[in-house]
């Protein structure tokens, strides 16, 4: 997927190639800047978000631009400051809160899944929770098992949260703007492998053309990143890039892949997945969350329970195995999904029977 591919699928006007290529980090930062500028109710909270602009560079420059009342460094009190953000949201602010690593959800899960997610329901619609919880996900750089998880399905499973995972800068900006304007709590998971921070390593392709003006990419809609006819590859975040690499490889073997970028875990855009598999008849889902009760299983079940779909091959999934994430680079790289493993699975699907 070049940035041009992204433009096609997102429907923006085709720009001059390489025009204004931004990283995901810069795209996210720009979205927050723009939303804060147009809506004074947007505030930002989190560890190290003010003075240094966020460990992931998501909040650079906001303190200078909008001042300490709206951009605030917090103590290491995730449960407290996310809970506080829900209170802010209940009375008219739109907090954007950063949870530095998704792995830290264990210390603040109640504030997310019980408080933020259920306010609107418990109040019968009287009180909403227009909060965005931004958080980094993913490994691959040997940060060990408490700093490398994605936990996608953990969030997707719990009702009341919208859950978003961009794979590229264009989507990242538009999805974040939509998230900030949404009246429901949105968990916005940016993958470290596509964030575009040199010190972390990144997939260069994730940096795309990003229009300067604010725009929205709708929440809850998957993207057809590439059209194809033989097999549907479903991915999200970093694994969309594994799918693109795999598709490029398979192309050489004469196998045509359709690629679905989920973009949203909740709501899950089952219709886009189903429409693709209805066409190709073959499905391989790829994600880097733990396998059981995970993304791949839900994608497979969503396809298989649709009586209108006839599969030409057994559906397959490639996920992180059901083990904590090992530190040693050889082990971590060995167990992470990648494009080679995906190529093998997709090839099997096409050659089956």
């Amino acid at each position, binding site marked *: 997927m070049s940035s041009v591919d992204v433009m096609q699928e997102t429907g923006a006007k085709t720009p001059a190639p390489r025009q204004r290529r931004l990283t995901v980090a810069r795209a996210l930062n720009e979205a927050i800047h723009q939303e804060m500028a147009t809506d004074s109710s947007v*505030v930002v909270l989190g560890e190290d978000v003010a003075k240094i602009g966020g460990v992931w560079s998501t909040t650079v420059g906001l303190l200078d631009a909008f001042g300490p*009342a*709206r951009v*605030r460094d*917090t*103590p290491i*009190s995730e*449960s*407290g*400051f*996310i*809970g*506080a*953000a*829900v*209170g*802010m*949201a*209940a*009375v*008219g*602010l739109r*907090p954007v809160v950063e949870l530095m690593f998704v792995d830290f959800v264990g210390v603040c899960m*109640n*504030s997310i899944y*019980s*408080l933020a997610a259920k*306010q*609107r*329901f*418990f*109040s*019968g*619609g*009287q*009180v909403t929770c227009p909060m965005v919880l931004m958080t980094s996900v993913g490994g691959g750089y040997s940060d060990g098992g408490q700093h490398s998880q994605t936990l996608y399905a953990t969030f997707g499973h719990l*009702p*009341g949260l*919208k859950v978003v995972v961009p794979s590229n800068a264009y989507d990242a900006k538009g999805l974040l703007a939509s998230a900030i304007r949404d009246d*429901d709590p949105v968990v916005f998971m940016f993958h470290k492998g596509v964030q575009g921070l040199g010190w972390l390593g990144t997939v260069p392709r994730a940096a795309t053309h990003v229009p300067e003006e604010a725009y929205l990419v709708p929440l*809850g809609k998957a993207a057809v990143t590439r059209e194809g006819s033989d097999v549907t590859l479903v991915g999200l975040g970093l694994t969309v890039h594994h799918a693109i690499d795999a598709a490029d490889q398979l192309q050489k073997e004469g196998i045509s892949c359709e690629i679905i970028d989920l973009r949203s875990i909740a*709501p899950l855009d089952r219709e886009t997945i189903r429409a693709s598999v209805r066409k190709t008849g073959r499905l391989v889902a790829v994600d880097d969350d733990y396998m059981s009760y995970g993304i791949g299983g839900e994608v497979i079940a969503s396809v298989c329970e649709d009586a209108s779909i006839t599969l030409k091959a057994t559906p397959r999934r490639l996920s992180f195995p059901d083990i904590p994430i090992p530190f040693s680079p050889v082990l971590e790289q060995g167990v992470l999904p990648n494009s080679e493993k995906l190529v093998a699975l997709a090839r099997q699907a096409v050659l089956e029977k």
Partner: protein
Amino acid sequence: MQPGQAPHGNLHHRLWMYEAMVKSRELESRIKTIYFEGKTPVFNMAKGPIPGEMHLSMGQEPCAVGVCAHLRPTDFVTATHRPHHVAVAKGVDLRKMAAEIFGKKTGLSRGLGGHMHLFDAAVNFSCSGIIGEGIAPAVGAAMAARIQGRDDVAVSFMGEGATNQGQFHEALNLAALWKAPVVFIIEDNAYGISVCKAESTSVASNADRAAAYGIPGVFVPGNDPDAIHAAAGEAIARARAGDGPTLIELETHRLEGHFVGDTVEYRPVEERERLAELDPIQLFRSRLIGDGHEASELDALDAEAVRLADDAISFARNSEYPALEEAFAHVFG
């Protein structure tokens, strides 16, 4: 007089407190009776017009009225699984509240929430069944008022048991650090379900925990509406003036079980026998009369409270249950 209208003189706010206490008590007495409908001879929580757990606040009314007498509708209050007295004192719509407790479509939340999830956005009231969950939102709402340039305050009510939740610590540190206009009210009824304070809390008075945040800590003994009113008034004025949070622990008494159906065998017999003497409504009534109020004046307030409670209950009883679609109407697809 409604909460939010500044209490005009000592006389008026005392009568307001009295009436609000009686109103809460009358409502809860009816709830308690009705709770057993369908649950006898075999007690089964799932049955009857009011199913599920039911935590009554009887005996703890002074905490609610002494604090809420100082609050406006725009001030923000979070309460707990034991929320009725605070809801009544904060001015939550009584009919809708009763209907919510019955699970009716006319309820505050159309029956989605129930007794532990009373939300009334009109008076900025909410509560929660997870211990400690309401503390941080109160800090956030208080900060929002500051950011938005309002002089509203927030008050978080909690039980003494809740002070041992990590959330208590995180929220108090944030509030102190940010000088949030919030007041933390601990209703110390000496028990968290069956576990008494000495077995859960490493200090005798939670007021001492204020030192961990560099904020004032106040302990008010006696379950006394006047004393609570005074202490809360000072703290709320302080918060409103921008001088930061206060932690107040109030001695109070849980006259009933933890929930209805609790046989309370874990409380020493002497303690249980003494409870009737500790009814704060009777004590406050006697004091008011001693201070020169006519019994007839109080009787009139009692009658009004009874009328409102009856009205709320019959509204709830006569309302319809929500349609099944309602369950899906407040979550995106």
